[in-house]
């Protein structure tokens, strides 16, 4: 992966106060998911604002695409088109009186034709699952919906990098999960994503790389299990060790065999425990995971099929899949970490159904395959392929 954003010994001081950023150097590769973690006042937001030229470092260099960032108006316009910034408070980011106007703001200012603007708005609203909200005024939206409008406003400019300042602040747990799922979806579409947060439980399983920041300096930069695994650095950053990591450390001290790659999910943890017990708590015949592509399959027929399988538990990955489930009144048991939860269910010998979209369907097979190789289990992933002409009437484990 090539480097898209880089900071070389950048420093910044707000007028009349002490240094907020004290010589930070790091780089960000294309397609990465990075979490900038630190306590309040660590300089996270200040650093993020340097990514799209909102703040100019007093010394050091910021590079985008291996070119030093230039701070003239036209260069900044180009940079801001490619680096989208989502503010912490969505109310402060939404500036127009309707959702359509706000999302269209960026493309219109980039000088696109009206038709292109309309298409960009439609695509962005589709991505964040707000189709039909065009005429709604922002003050009629919930916190999660406002956040999605703010993200759509940035997505409409089709940036390469998305920068989120405290993306889950002010959201309820379900809203936070939905948002993190959306960030995964965007990353899967090829966007580089960087978030700032002080929520270690959120950053640990999500990020590919974590940067611990405190008092304007990076104190540790590594994969999350290493970055959060060192209690000295975690304490220095006024953070806490993620529960899963703490639990795996304790299990390791009690004789459990902990793999080199520390557990990042409940599934990983169950795998460690099962290994220790030599698979004693697993089911002799694992369940199956059925996958329905809501972009291609006939969802109306799917509803009828789901109704005939009351024991089947469904989960949805991606905004469109969740909307489809809501439209077809399919009760969702899982909305975040869906694949892992379905694998856990399969290990107990139960079947489950994942609703997903064309862009994300391959992730199911890849993740299940990786787990099966690592654990030696066999879990079947079956594409449902329901069409109006050939509805699936029943599907059992034996048929698989």
């Amino acid at each position, binding site marked *: 992966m090539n480097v898209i954003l880089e900071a070389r010994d950048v420093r910044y001081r707000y007028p009349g106060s002490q240094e907020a950023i004290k010589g930070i150097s790091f780089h960000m590769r294309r397609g990465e998911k990075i979490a900038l973690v630190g306590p309040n006042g660590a300089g996270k937001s200040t650093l993020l604002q340097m990514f799209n030229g*909102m703040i100019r470092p007093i010394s050091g260099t910021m590079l985008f695409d291996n070119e030093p960032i230039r701070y003239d108006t036209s260069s900044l316009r180009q940079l801001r*088109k490619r680096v989208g910034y989502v*503010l912490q408070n969505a109310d402060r980011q939404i*500036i*127009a009186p309707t959702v359509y106007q706000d999302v*269209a*703001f960026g493309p*219109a200012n*980039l000088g696109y034709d009206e038709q292109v603007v309309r298409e960009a708005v439609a695509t962005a609203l589709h991505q964040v699952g707000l189709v039909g909200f065009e005429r709604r005024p922002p003050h009629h939206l919930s916190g999660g919906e406002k956040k999605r409008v703010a993200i759509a406003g940035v997505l409409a400019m089709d940036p390469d990098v998305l920068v989120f300042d405290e993306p889950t602040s002010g959201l309820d747990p379900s809203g936070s999960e939905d948002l993190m799922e959306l960030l995964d979806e965007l990353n899967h579409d090829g966007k580089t994503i960087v978030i700032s947060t002080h929520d270690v439980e959120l950053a640990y399983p999500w990020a590919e790389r974590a940067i611990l920041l405190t008092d304007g300096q990076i104190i540790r930069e590594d994969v999350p299990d290493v970055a959060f695994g060192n209690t000295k650095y975690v304490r220095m950053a006024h953070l806490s060790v993620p529960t899963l990591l703490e639990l795996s450390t304790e299990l390791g001290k009690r004789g459990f065999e902990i793999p080199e790659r520390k557990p990042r999910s409940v599934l990983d943890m169950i795998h460690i425990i099962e290994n220790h017990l030599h698979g004693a708590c697993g089911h002799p015949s694992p369940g199956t995971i059925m996958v329905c592509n809501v972009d291609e399959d006939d969802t109306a027929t799917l509803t009828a099929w789901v109704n005939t399988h009351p024991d089947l538990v469904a989960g949805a990955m991606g905004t469109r899949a969740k909307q489809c489930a809501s439209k077809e009144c399919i009760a969702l048991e899982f909305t975040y970490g869906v694949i892992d939860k379905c694998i856990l269910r399969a290990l107990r010998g139960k079947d489950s159904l994942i609703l997903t979209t064309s862009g994300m369907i391959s992730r199911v097979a890849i993740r299940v395959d990786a787990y099966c190789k690592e654990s030696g289990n066999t879990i079947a992933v079956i594409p449902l392929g329901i069409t109006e002409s050939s509805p699936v009437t029943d599907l059992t484990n034996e048929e698989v």
Partner: protein
Amino acid sequence: MRSMIETNLDNVAQQSAFRHIYPGTKLLLALGSLILCLISPSPVVPLISGIVLSLVLIVPGRISPILYGELLLGPAIFAMMSVIVLLFMLGGGDVIWRFNPVPWINLTITTGSLREGILVLCRVFGCSISMFFIALTTPMTDLFNGMKRIGIPIELIDLMMIIYRYIFIICAQAVEIWQAQVMRLGYSRPWEAVRSFSMLCGMLFISSWNAGEDLVRAMDCRCYNGVFPSLDLAEPIQMWSLVPVILYLAGLSGILLVMTTGVVIVP
């Protein structure tokens, strides 16, 4: 204060059953009624217009009658106070009622002043309801589009749109500050209330200033270049709504003509 924010006219307009009717049709109905009420020399036309528009708003428009009554209370009290003054100020005709509180003050109500008072009251009633019809059925965003079409300078409309957006944010902040003050007995005594209110204004000023700075930052982040996109997703003109409006206005004009000239045109 919270309920004031929640039941603001724009929210009612957003939820109105007439929300999706072409705004021009609604403007035609409201402005047509308003003009006819104003030029009518008789209270009959404003009275009919007010009653018909109220029924339209409440029955098919599904506006809460209680909310509508509360809204009308404001102009009604204002109009009543003005009419009471007019009753004693205007003259003409026979004296109906005379009152001498002190020997040198002579208050009289005459048939002429009563006629004028009733006419003014009915006009205020008809005109207020015409204006409420627009406010309760057409959200501001639709009006912005209309303003753009009739050629109001785009800079002015952009400014109005930003102000409109920030009214709700600042109102919400005001409610939060006010609640925080009330919870700590900020308005329990008159002097305390004055102090709390001045603090509320000060805090609002600071937060508005910060919101303004964030606005500039948010616009810069999205490459602001002087363009504020408009929402051209207006409803098309629907004949099913336009025809009844034209027929209604024609009928009201006919009544006005009869009232003015006393001539009934027989086809």
